[in-house]
């Protein structure tokens, strides 16, 4: 608890934390609430008339139980916002040499590391809270005659979202500990996540591709939009109704590996 308190003091007093969180929450809320107004197939201009949806909201974007899958999918676009904040805060501790001072003052390296895990957990929990609250409000607005006994159906996607964000946190934290500097860490993360691993996946092909470090976290929530539009059949897509346990476990496995590796990096180095 002492460690959580220290970490919270460090975050709370920085305006970037509040600005970043506000931006994060705003981005998620805007995308989730406005996505419903987006109409990819406007019936008026679609002479074929096969798909006559007015917009995504009418198509069932906010319908229970699928709403959870939809909102977490949309929310995950912004997962790098808290990740970059985490990079910022951890690399600052190196830059200010406060990490070293914390250890001189009394923390062990293990305790310091746990305090950073709390940071990752704080960011992940806030992410989950924002998406849950937004999803809940949208569910209330867009569903009539809610069957409360079935309200929890589909919320496994909230678990999936939590695990995905936590994984991204540990992934970025690990690399921040390796590089110590924020700029290089951000570049490496983006280059790896969006270029290196997809390319590697292309080369290795299935099923190896699905077990590269970041891939399982991406497979937790496949895009559900084609199903929403009734286009799955057309495109030969199969959108799962539940989070894949296999990829959930793999993601958790990588999260633990990165978390442990981060500790050993700190332990091995001089401060």
């Amino acid at each position, binding site marked *: 608890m002492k460690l959580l308190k220290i970490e919270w*003091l460090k975050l709370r*007093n920085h305006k970037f934390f509040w600005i970043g969180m506000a931006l994060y929450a705003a981005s998620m809320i805007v995308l989730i609430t406005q996505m419903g107004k987006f109409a990819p197939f406007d019936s008026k201009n679609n002479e074929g008339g096969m798909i006559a949806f007015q917009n995504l909201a009418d198509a069932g974007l906010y319908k229970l139980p699928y709403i959870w899958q939809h909102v977490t999918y949309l929310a995950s676009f912004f997962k790098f916002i808290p990740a970059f904040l985490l990079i910022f805060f951890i690399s600052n501790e190196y830059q200010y040499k*406060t990490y070293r001072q914390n250890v001189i003052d*009394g923390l062990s390296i293990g305790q310091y590391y746990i305090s950073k895990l709390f940071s990752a957990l704080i960011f992940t929990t806030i992410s989950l809270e924002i998406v849950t609250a937004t999803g809940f409000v949208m569910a209330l607005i867009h569903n009539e005659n809610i069957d409360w006994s079935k309200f929890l159906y589909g919320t496994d996607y909230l678990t999936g979202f939590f695990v995905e964000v936590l994984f991204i946190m540990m992934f970025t934290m690990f690399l921040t500990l390796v590089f110590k500097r924020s700029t290089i860490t951000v570049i490496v993360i983006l280059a790896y996540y969006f270029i290196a691993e997809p390319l590697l996946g292309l080369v290795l092909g299935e099923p190896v591709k699905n077990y590269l470090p970041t891939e399982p976290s991406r497979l937790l929530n496949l895009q559900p939009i084609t199903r929403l539009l009734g286009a799955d059949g057309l495109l030969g897509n199969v959108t799962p109704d539940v989070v894949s346990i296999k990829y959930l476990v793999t993601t958790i496995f990588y999260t633990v590996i990165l978390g442990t590796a981060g500790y050993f990096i700190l332990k091995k180095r001089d401060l």
Partner: protein
Amino acid sequence: MEKILEINGLTKSYGRIQAVQNLSLDIPKGSVFGILGPNGSGKTTTLGMVLGVIKPDSGNFNWFGQQLNFDTKKRVGAILETPNFYPYMSGVKNLEIVASIKEIRNPKIEETLNTVGLGERGHSKFKSYSLGMKQRLAIASALLSQPEILVLDEPTNGLDPQGIAQIRELILEIASRGITIIIASHILVEIEKVCTHAAVLQRGVLRFAGRVEELTGLEGLVEISAADNGILMNVLNAFDAVESVTEEGGLLLAKLNKEWSADDINRQLAAQGIFVNHLVFRKASLETQFLNLIEA
């Protein structure tokens, strides 16, 4: 003599550079202990090792007869190199973090800030502080847990003369409360003015450890002149305590090989019928000693 810190054979190298070589040192309780050496002589590395942030290659150390642990860390207030704080937080907030880390119940933050003369600026952000204020906040932070020992690394580095004088006064004031102080510095005057003990490091090797008087007083120099310096020189040369006499700008410089007070010199010369018109102890400066040591 009770030892606060005992260092046995500490060694650390960075690649091929030997930062600290087989260093053994005892820091007595109640001393103001200066660790002196040019830049790169291993002072900060030594302090980093005993503070638990640099892993020694070999050797060990004990604080209060124990290995470094949370309890000993709480009894030691330390700053390594520069004052390290969160720039976006005020002095008070920064001290709150230190208090949480050290698990200090009811930390006397305001009081400690007053001690170092930062009482009025406590709520300003750290990044708005001048270098002197940052140094003083660092001392406040180190004092917060009411430690038995204070470790300061180059506490006056980069300060203007007034800032240096303030820090020096502060150190002497803290020492007068019975807190043991370790100061690493390459500024000799600093050590000379505040320390009771000193160790001299050069390229990671210990060249001297002992009381500051031993370091400065080994070769006392006395400036003397009388009506007839020729006779005076002969008389001085005859004294056991005088090692050699030289002339310098109309004054005689007598190099002493043992402690000899001005009283004694005056009395003995008077007994020989010589009355001096000038008698000043010129302490061989620490600088001379220091250079002698590291050139040896």
